[in-house]
């Protein structure tokens, strides 16, 4: 490389490069940063090169290998310029097609980026939601530059700022400009960079050795923007350091970089070498009399070295222990000389400020927080990656608009910012503007920009414990309170997460947290309490649940969770236990395990929403979960229920309890109250018991004889069922108490269909789904005729659609939903089954007008939607597309857009006031189900809104316990122990090879022809062999808790051995 001798030569060299015309041909851009390479970018590059050589494309297509561009979730990808067509997650096979179409100026549509399979493909990167809301001033350069080519950097505006500074060397002007820009340190603390430079400039009486240090010790787990900048655009960092050196008259610089970042080190070394060779670094730079050179120091792995005084000790070759400040490093730093330490991202901003001018720079962001900030958006988020936004953007915009919300259907709970020094911000606060000051106010910090998204499956106690474990490990040990305090806090958190915690410990934890924050010397200790304090502030309830209820709702804390299937089940079914028995062929034992927890095993075997499968650990290891519900079905079909007899109280009690509603909640409560000896009377409004199980769930999912059999088994000598007794009409709560009932359990469900609120909804042919389903299920009335439309996307809508299809005068059934099929809340297997049965799906449509003729429905006018921004539920909001209205002729319309409790019946005038929530549900305490009037308890859909059968059973079980406690005058909420597996079921010997061959067994269905014309049950039980194989797939999470310890085993073996000896 030619060594430039003067500033003039440098300027003309720059001009030449910048003015050189770019070749007019497509360019393939491949991200080959650490993330890209780890995902296979190098393979993609090889194939591009090979194809280009073999087809002689040298003159027709260009290739640019860049550092990390930020959209790491989509690696490896190719971006084709000039159209900016983004082809994500490529395989080597895709490459030739992309090159060929690029040559023709075309695109390969099926390979282009799309948000999901239900979305249109995006032609230009700028239209992709992830990029749309970003302002990529700093990060955007990575896309344009091959980091190992200094000319690339120069061509894209690089070293322009240096030229400007060198042309008229004026350190005061530089400092003033940086001050004016309002740039604050991007490393975390947000100290104004210009002010730091000013002090550094003045330090040492303006003369003598001074140092610039670039802090690239990005130790905050979860943050990687500094790595990406150093890796993808190292010259920008060098240029920033050069300008800083000129500003404060430093002659030597260091880049302190983590050794975990080999590619960043490599690229920084190349850049330094190139800058030296060009004459931009070294002695007498471009004949200006300025000396400056940079050395790379590799951090040897200590988080505390990110703290500036510790970093100094480390560069000096000592243990990285911080020291007291002041004196600040700008006065006394490396080897006692003034040292200005800036973060990578801060330094990368400097060339922009100098080039554009401070005022222009300060236009971005909000007052006091100017410019942009890069965040690494990671954890439970759809679009993981690096995002750059103006300061002052809200967390919501980053997480939902850019990040695309949660990965699956689990809602986002919180975001952790600032790493181990930061805190957790709950989802309710996502409208918070991101700037140094707002985050501090909310109990967190900006930190270096890590944003770890957590969903309902992340436990906040576990997160606090995680950070405390990190901090106690990384505490250098110099300050007693940090060394011991982090250790003690960790131990307390460990106690809590393992079920030994007490409420007193919680107070101690809080006190300790404050002490550590107040009495330690460096930033590590002073902020070490933030993860604890912020989670206590926003998620105290979770801590209390761990301590009092022995429960980790996220399913993370192993000792409280035990087997996830069991702990997730609302009624605590030991799924692992019956699965283990099935594998061993012990079917009766399996049945007992099911029945012990559940009075409705055959019903749940058919209609349960199987939360156990969602949390099954097998499903989280890259394969599909155990088909637990299908196994339950196998057992309940096979075993005669009479083998299990529940234990009854020996003595009959005289106390009477009233249960209103004979749905799953009411029946379950009655059953367990009866077992305790209480006299229970059930009042049911309909003519038959079963509630929604009877009136709404169609017989093809739940045959009537199965339902009746299990309900009949509940109605024993202690239980009296009175049908056709409606609350508010035939019975009132006040009257029940007057009649001597000690307690009342209200479980009337949610029986009122929500309305579309369109004119004509009262017309003939329009039905709320609940009315439509009840008419058929209870009275056999077939209300559907001709062309049927069903509005809604929940289970009720799918049930209505499939029921309508089976009615005799029906021609066609169309399901109308306002979002996409992906967002439908109905069970996916039900949606699939509906599809198989030729039910038409019209998704992304919304009814706007009901068309009638002489009071009879003739059709519905709809408007098409597109998906807009993400709303509070974490789903994309449907937005109507103007002028997309269309008419669908209909003879029947079923409205299935959710139900709500009929609160008028609960609190008609004259009744004692029961508190009703704003959403129209009945208030009942979360922990003990008591309503606002003593003696009244409530559970099931009336409290939760439309919900599942198993949740209603759970409420019924809980109600029985609470009513018993209430009548006996006991405290309602009592500490509970974690329900972890206890019964040891010996595992079968299965080799890993055998296991790896097993695939999830799916229950067979009856043929489609039979389905559409009858109400015969669709799903059949698994054949025995399939069931056994399926059961063998279980990972047996229980064994960790139940398996006899090695010592016990040896003892057992010894016993056996001695028995053998005796017998011989």
């Amino acid at each position, binding site marked *: 490389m030619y060594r430039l001798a003067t500033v003039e030569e440098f300027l003309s060299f720059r001009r030449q490069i910048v003015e050189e015309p770019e070749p007019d041909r497509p360019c393939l851009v491949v991200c080959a940063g*650490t*993330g890209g390479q*780890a*995902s296979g970018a190098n393979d993609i590059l*090889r*194939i*591009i*090169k*090979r194809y*280009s*050589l*073999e*087809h*002689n*494309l*040298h*003159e027709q297509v260009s*290739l640019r290998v860049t550092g990390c561009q930020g959209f*790491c979730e989509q*690696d490896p990808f190719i971006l084709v310029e000039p159209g900016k067509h983004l082809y994500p997650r490529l395989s*080597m096979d895709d490459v030739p097609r992309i090159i060929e179409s690029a040559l023709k100026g075309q695109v390969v549509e099926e390979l282009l980026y799309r948000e999901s399979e239900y979305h249109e493909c995006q032609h230009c990167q700028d239209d992709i939601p992830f990029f749309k809301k970003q302002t990529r001033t700093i990060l955007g350069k990575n896309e344009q530059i091959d980091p190992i080519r200094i000319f690339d950097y120069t061509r894209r505006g690089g070293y322009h700022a240096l030229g400007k500074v060198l042309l008229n060397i004026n350190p005061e002007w530089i400092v003033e400009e940086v001050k004016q820009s309002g740039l604050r340190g991007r490393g975390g603390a947000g100290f104004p960079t210009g002010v730091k430079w000013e002090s550094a400039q003045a330090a040492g009486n303006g003369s003598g050795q001074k140092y610039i240090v670039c802090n690239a010790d*990005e*130790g*905050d*787990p*979860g*943050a*990687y923007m500094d790595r990406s900048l150093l890796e993808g655009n190292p010259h920008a960092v060098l240029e920033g350091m050069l300008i800083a050196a000129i500003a404060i008259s430093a002659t030597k610089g260091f880049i302190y970089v983590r050794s*975990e*970042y080999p590619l960043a080190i*490599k690229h920084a070394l*190349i850049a330094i070498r*190139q800058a030296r*060779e060009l004459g931009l670094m070294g002695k007498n730079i471009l004949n200006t009399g300025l000396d400056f050179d940079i050395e790379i*120091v*590799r951090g*040897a*792995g*200590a*988080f505390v070295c990110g703290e500036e005084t510790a970093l100094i000790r480390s*560069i*000096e*070759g*000592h*243990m990285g222990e911080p020291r007291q400040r002041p004196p600040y490093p700008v006065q006394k730093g490396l*080897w006692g000389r003034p040292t200005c330490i800036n973060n990578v991202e801060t330094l990368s901003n400097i060339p922009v400020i100098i080039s554009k001018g401070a005022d222009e720079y300060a236009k971005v962001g909000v007052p006091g927080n100017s410019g942009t900030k890069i965040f*690494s958006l*990671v*954890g439970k988020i759809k679009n*993981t990656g690096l995002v750059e936004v103006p300061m002052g953007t809200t967390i919501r915009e980053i997480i939902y608009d850019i990040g695309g919300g949660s990965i699956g259907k689990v809602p986002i709970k919180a975001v*952790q910012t600032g*790493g181990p020094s930061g805190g957790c911000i709950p989802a309710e606060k996502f409208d918070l503007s991101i700037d140094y000051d707002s985050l501090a106010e909310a109990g967190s910090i900006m930190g270096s920009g890590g944003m*770890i998204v957590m969903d309902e499956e*992340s436990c906040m106690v576990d*997160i606090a414990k*995680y950070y405390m474990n990190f901090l106690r490990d990384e505490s250098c040990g110099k300050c007693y309170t940090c060394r011991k305090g982090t250790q003690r806090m960790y131990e307390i958190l460990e106690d809590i997460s393992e079920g030994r915690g007490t409420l007193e410990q919680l107070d101690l934890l809080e006190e300790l947290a404050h002490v550590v924050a107040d009495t330690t010397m460096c930033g590590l200790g002073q902020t070490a309490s933030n993860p604890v304090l912020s989670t206590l502030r926003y998620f105290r309830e979770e801590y209390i649940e761990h301590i009092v209820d022995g429960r980790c709702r996220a399913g993370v804390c192993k000792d409280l969770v035990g087997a996830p299937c069991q702990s997730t089940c609302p009624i605590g079914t030991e799924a692992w236990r019956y699965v283990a028995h099935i594998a061993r062929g012990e079917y009766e034992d399996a049945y007992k395990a099911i029945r012990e927890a559940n009075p409705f095993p055959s019903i749940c075997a058919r209609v349960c929403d199987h939360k156990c499968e969602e949390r099954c*650990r097998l499903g*989280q*290891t890259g394969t599909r979960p155990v088909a637990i519900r299908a196994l339950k079905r196998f057992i309940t079909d096979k075993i005669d229920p009479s083998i299990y007899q529940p234990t009854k109280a020996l003595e009959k009690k005289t106390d009477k309890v009233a249960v209103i509603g004979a749905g799953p909640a009411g029946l379950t409560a009655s059953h367990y109250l009866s077992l305790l000896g209480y006299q229970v009377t059930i009042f049911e409004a309909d003519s038959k018991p079963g509630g929604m199980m009877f009136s709404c769930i169609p017989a093809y999912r739940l045959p009537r004889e199965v339902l009746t059999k299990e309900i009949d088994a509940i109605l024993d000598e202690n239980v009296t069922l009175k049908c056709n007794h409606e609350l508010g009409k035939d019975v009132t709560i006040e009257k029940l108490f007057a009649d001597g009932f000690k307690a009342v359990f209200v479980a009337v469900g949610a029986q009122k269909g929500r309305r579309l609120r369109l004119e004509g909804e009262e017309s003939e042919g329009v039905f709320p789904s609940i009315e439509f389903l009840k008419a058929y299920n209870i009275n056999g009335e077939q209300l559907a005729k001709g062309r049927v439309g069903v509005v809604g996307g929940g289970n009720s809508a799918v049930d209505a659609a499939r029921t309508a299809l089976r009615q005799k005068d029906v021609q066609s059934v169309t399901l109308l939903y306002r979002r996409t099929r992906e967002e439908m809340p109905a069970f996916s297997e039900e949606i699939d089954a509906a599809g198989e049965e030729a039910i038409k799906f019209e998704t992304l449509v919304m009814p706007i007008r009901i068309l009638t003729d002489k009071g009879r429905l003739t059709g519905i006018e709809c408007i098409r939607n597109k998906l807009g921004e993400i709303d509070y539920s974490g789903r994309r909001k449907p937005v109507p597309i103007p002028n997309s209205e269309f008419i669908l002729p209909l003879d029947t319309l079923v409205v299935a857009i959710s139900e709500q409790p009929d609160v008028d019946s609960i609190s008609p005038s004259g009744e004692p006031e029961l508190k009703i929530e704003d959403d129209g549900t009945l208030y009942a305490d979360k922990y003990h189900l008591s309503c606002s009037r003593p003696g009244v308890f409530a559970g099931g859909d009336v409290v939760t809104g439309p919900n599942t059968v198993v949740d209603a059973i759970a409420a019924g079980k809980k109600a029985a316990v609470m009513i018993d406690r209430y009548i006996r005058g006991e405290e309602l909420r009592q500490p509970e122990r974690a329900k972890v597996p206890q019964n040891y079921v010996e595992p079968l010997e299965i080799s*890993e090879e055998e296991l790896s061959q097993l695939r999830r067994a799916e229950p067979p269905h009856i043929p489609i022809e039979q389905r559409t014309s009858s109400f015969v049950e669709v799903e059949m039980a698994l054949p025995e062999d399939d069931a056994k194989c399926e059961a063998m797939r279980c990972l047996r999470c229980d064994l960790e808790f139940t398996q006899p310890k090695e010592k016990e085993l040896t003892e057992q073996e010894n016993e056996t051995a001695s028995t053998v000896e005796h017998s011989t």
Partner: protein
Amino acid sequence: MTTDEIPAIVERHLDDQGGLISILEEVQAKFGYLPADALTIVAETTKRPLVDIYGVATFYRAFSLTPRGEHLVSVCVGTACHVRGAPRVAAEFERQLDVKPGETTPDRKFTLETVNCLGACALGPVVVVDGHYFSHVNASKVREIIEKTREGLDKIEIKTDRRIFPVEVSCSRCNHSLMDPEHPIDGFPSVKITQSFGQQHGWLRLSSLYGSYNIEEEYKTPYDTVLHLFCPHCHTELIGGSDCPECGAQMVPLILRGGGTVQICPRRGCKGHILDVG
């Protein structure tokens, strides 16, 4: 390697102001860990108290006082990987290798460690084995990773791997083809150039497979030396390339048939190269 070489390492870093960490890094690179004797010798030669050396050696995570295994398995337990299930991955490695993090298997094959963040958060949970990244790891992938490592992660099938392909090159001065069909390497015509090292001149044949580093040479040249390479036709020295991204030596540019250039590093043993196709 014996401890005799340690004074030389210390010597090299005496001028560095903060040399101790670099010295220990280099010693560890040679031994794979920091043996007790080595620390004593470093203390003697640097004239610093042994406690200082020990302090630094135990303060930083990068140093190990116990021997490491042939393969280093690093399981990232950074926050992003943690929330995506890294603890279960780490537990599975512990179970299968039957060692705790920080320990080495008795056969010295594997050392297991957990690291706080590798900065590849989007790919979490991440595991790095000897510099090879494995992304979106879950417990059921652990066995495969261990098996692949045992088989050799760098192993490539030259014949079947389509990332390996032949190139044809010519002299960047006289444009004469450098291909030698008479002496194939890896089953393809080799690239023949002249090398000179000290007083010796002789031919050097390189595999023309992009991705293969097989060579044959007339005279054995020592590892790590930068060779002078010449065109066997016009005898011009092949120079003028950019710096090697791996070692910094000036690379040798060759013209590619099909367009573009390939630059190779003339340092014996260095795998640095740049293939520019447009």
